[in-house]
């Protein structure tokens, strides 16, 4: 009898050690992977800077002078219906090419627990872009949430000499 009670108490103690998996931060990221036109992963030789415009009109740099970019992780706004991102590429001759990317999406608040900050999950509905340096962008995964293991966008830059 004593053994049974001890086993039950032990099981209760072990089982009661539950934890809530709060994300370290409540920003949900989008992942972009660079590809060549033939579908091979690309490494960008130019220097890449990405920024957006804040509510007050000022710039907010999301990626600063990144070289040899292969995969990009960029934030996504909580409640904007469409995010505008400016891609600036500067080559070794200091020639600047600038593209604008518009990402349309839905916004869904996500409640985990009262102990965790609110997050916003999204579904990407469309993407459009200008064609200065970018050839095309494909949506690989629509849902943007805590899972950033699969890239959301495949981005193809124009061939460089």
């Amino acid at each position, binding site marked *: 009898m004593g053994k049974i009670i001890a086993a039950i108490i032990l099981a209760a103690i072990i*089982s009661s050690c539950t934890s809530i998996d709060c994300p370290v931060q409540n920003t949900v990221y989008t992942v972009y992977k660079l590809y060549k036109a033939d579908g091979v992963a690309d490494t960008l030789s130019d220097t890449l800077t990405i920024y957006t415009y*804040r509510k007050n009109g000022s710039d907010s740099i999301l990626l600063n002078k990144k070289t040899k970019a292969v995969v990009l992780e960029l934030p996504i706004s909580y409640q904007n219906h469409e995010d505008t991102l400016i891609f600036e590429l500067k080559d070794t001759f200091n020639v600047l090419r600038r593209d604008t990317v518009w990402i349309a999406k839905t916004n869904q*608040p996500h409640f985990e627990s009262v102990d965790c900050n609110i997050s916003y999950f999204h579904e990407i509905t469309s993407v459009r872009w200008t064609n200065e340096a970018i050839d095309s962008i494909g949506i690989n995964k629509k849902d943007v949430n805590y899972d950033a293991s699969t890239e959301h966008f495949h981005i193809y830059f124009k061939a460089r000499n």
Partner: protein
Amino acid sequence: MTLQRNTSIYISRLAISLIMLTAYVAMHAQNKIFAVQKDTVPFFKGFSISIDLAGPVMRTLGDYGEYEASLRINLHNQYFPIFEIGYGSAKHDDEVTSLYYKTQAPYFRIGCDLNLLKNKHTGNRMFGGLRYAFTSYKVDIAHPGMQDPVWGWDTSFSITGETCSQHWIEAVFGIDAKIWGPLHLGWNVRYKRRIAHKDSSVGNTWYIPGYGKYGDTRIGANFNVIIDI
């Protein structure tokens, strides 16, 4: 001479038959003595009602808890079909995350306990049992507002009265001790496992009446005052 011999054989056979008959009657009588030891405890032994003291203490000292009572049928001090009903509530306003959560709803459980003691008629009981439980509840979740760290826009959200539900099962182990007359005190430990649920549109729910905090499994406990009727 032959007549005497026949008479002797007859008497011997008669004597042996009488001895065997006597032995048979005695054995049969002994069997009857064992057979008449009937179980005098009736099959239906009445009801008991109980209230849980742990839930109200939790509700008073913390942000959530339950008020719970149960009706239990005593069948031969061995089987105890039980119906439990309660009212759970939670109200939490988090100082760190500024999240507000509120719910209150009834819940019920139905199941059966088995008295595990070898001598079941002492008045003390050790139970093992199973429950099925269900609740349908409404939640209010709100956040007063926060600023998007990159874009700088203020965001807020709230849901009010959104209907959620949950089905779950419980494995129960408990002990009741007879204190005085019909009064018992007892405790039980419950392993709860969710089998189906409908959460809010914004993701999870935090507290489920009767089940406790959100999760696939939980451990709970009750401390009961029980009165046999």
